[in-house]
């Protein structure tokens, strides 16, 4: 049973109905109907200003839709139940400057009632190469390390929906491979994973691709380079031009 088959069989983790978002007179997200099921790994592609971050932040409950609704596992996005199920990794890592990475992991896990964080933290930090940095403050981290730490914070707590906004930015190639494995494992466990990205390799391992342009959904289907490119304007087509043929 493929991820897409499983998604079709189970109730959706994320369900958007007529979702629309405007900033003053700027349309950031056109009316959008979308369903993402458990086990799906979705690559969300589009150029700058396409509406990717808006979609993710609305799903995370950080931004409210102008019209329409978005539900996470049946609960309205931003509600307590939805927050318990949604993990959001922002495009810019956010840390308390006076707490170490380990303290971040502890409190974020405990805020989500994940009491087994002590056992799970080493398994997260070690592959990301952060095991020596647990006691350090975030201001001692490089850009890439901040990104990796942010990813660790997103994974330390339980979730049914993982929203990752440009998570590959700033990562070195080995870390990118680790992240790919982490995303795959999360989807394999039954979580819905949505990764917004400019990076073409995401399309390689995703089970579905959603393309946005100027806030409009222009493609929703298998992550096939040629098909996606056909649905995007030429300048966005460059985004997927070098996707290697899936093997």
């Amino acid at each position, binding site marked *: 049973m493929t991820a897409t088959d499983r998604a079709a069989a189970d109730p959706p983790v994320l369900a958007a109905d007529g979702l629309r978002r405007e900033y003053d007179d700027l349309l950031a997200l056109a009316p959008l109907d979308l369903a993402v099921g458990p086990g799906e790994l979705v690559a969300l592609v589009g150029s700058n200003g396409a509406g990717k971050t808006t979609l993710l932040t609305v799903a995370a409950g950080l931004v409210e839709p102008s019209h329409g609704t978005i539900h996470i*596992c049946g609960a309205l996005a931003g509600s307590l139940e939805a927050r318990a199920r949604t993990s959001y990794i922002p495009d810019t890592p956010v840390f308390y400057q006076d707490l170490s990475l380990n303290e971040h992991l502890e409190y974020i896990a405990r805020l989500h*009632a994940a009491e087994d964080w002590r056992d799970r933290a080493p398994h997260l930090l070690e592959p990301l190469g952060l095991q020596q940095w647990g006691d350090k403050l975030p201001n001692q981290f490089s850009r890439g390390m901040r990104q990796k730490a942010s990813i660790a914070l997103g994974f330390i707590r*339980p*979730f049914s929906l993982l929203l990752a906004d440009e998570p590959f930015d700033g990562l070195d190639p080995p870390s990118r491979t680790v992240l790919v494995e982490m995303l795959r494992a999360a989807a394999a466990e039954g979580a819905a994973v949505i990764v917004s990205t400019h990076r073409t390799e995401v399309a390689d391992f995703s089970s579905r691709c959603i393309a946005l342009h100027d806030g409009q959904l222009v493609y929703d289907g298998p992550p096939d380079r040629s098909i996606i490119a056909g649905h995007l304007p030429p300048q966005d087509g460059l985004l997927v031009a070098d996707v290697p043929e899936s093997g």
Partner: protein
Amino acid sequence: MIADASGWGANQASSLQALRDLRSARRRHYAAQVDWIEAGYRLYLGVIFGGWALALISGALADVRVDGHALEQIHQRGAAALGLLVAVAVAAGLRSGGRGGPLVLEAPDVQHVLLAPVDRGAALRGLAVRRLRTAGFLGLVLGLIAGIFAFRRLPGRPAEWLLCGGVFGGAVAVSALASALIASGRRLHRVVIWVLAALIVGWSVADFVGQRVTSPASMLGALALWPLHRANESFVLPAAGLLVVTVAAVLGLTGLAGTSLEAARRRAGLAAQLRFAVTTQDLRAIILLRRQLASEIPRRRPWLALAPPDGARRRRWRRLAPSDGPRNAIWQRDWQSFLRWPLVRVLRVGALGALAGLSLLAVWRGTTPLVLVAAFALMVAAFDAVEPIGQEVDHPTLLALLPVGAGQVIRQHLRAPTTVMAGVGLIATATAIVAGAPAGLIGVILVMTVPTALLSLSCAALSVTNDPFAYVLAPELGYFQTGFPVALVVIGVGGPVLLARQAARHGASAVGAAVACELAVFAISLAVMAYLAYRIAARVPVRS
């Protein structure tokens, strides 16, 4: 690990405990970083200088008792007038709440705490209580200072004036903050906020006109003046006013869960930048960030279009604005900027002019320290008026590419703002006239208008164009750089009015004394302007 949200009700307690532990860990880290000897020394200095300032203020107050007519006025309208002040503060609070204020969270709190399955009301309550406490304390201190002013001029026991002044000050601050919390937490629509604000202010205006005490705001005003007529009145009205404030605070604190995360995130980012700007004393950045925090953005459509019309009307326009040279271009550009001022800025600048007028009147009548309030009001208004120069300095390359010397551009930029500040001076004059200023003072304020406009503008321009990193290694020089323009305005406003007052008290011409002083103020303004133009010209990338 897949989340199971079915049992989240049971997990709330452990999440809240985690939140408490998080806060406590952060407090421990903070306490570990504090240099307690240094903090004690600062407190010691604060107490010494605070006490000294209080003694100075107290001593500077001439014991001019208000006359019978003024006392009668205070009896009749004092409570409603103070109530109007409360109503305006509450309206401002509602407006702030409608834009996401008053809480300023840290970005990690928004990301990690408010996105966690924790009751947001509980998560925000501590911060809100701290804000209420701080605002209440500051209001209390200001109220105490006002109490000192009051008991030296009005009948009544000093202790009662101090107590009522302090409680009134605290209550005003808490009511403004509580109304902001209500508007923000309960997500009041912008229209609802405007209607509520209009009703609250309107009720107080009606009280003032009708010489009554019916609104809760006027009841608080009655609290402030209770020492004056406690023999005739019960404490019921003031107590009712305090009860309304308490209810508002409770309503504000119980509705916190509805706070918009979008606004919280935006404010968190801006507040972080603002803190850095304050640390570096970067006044220009502070002004711009404060405007963003208050969502004070230029109007999309100007109050009045300045673009030249077409056809026959264009020919008339050309007659009115015959030259296309840089002088006219800059003059027009500056007015285009002013004509896009949002309503709140227009009202603020007008209110600052009125405040300056009332303060000068109080100075004239003997309350000397209010000269500081008049000077600060004019300086703050000048910070708004000087915006076109700020824009030039923000874009040094564009300035350098102009076929005109940078110094000349800056000098030209002072013309339109001076006109605006002269308008502020006229508002001050009109307010003083309405408040019953004597002819001598009106003449003095009119004489002061243009030189003070020039001085406050050039000093404001000096402040916003200071290089915040020029004295990073010598912070004392940085403080001097920041304080010098303010000191100049205080001297430029206070000197003439105090000397004119002195002349009037000795039977000499107040206006004559003011004219002599204003010549010096004018000369200082020209010197500051010349330095400003030189400094900006020296800073642009291509020397003109």
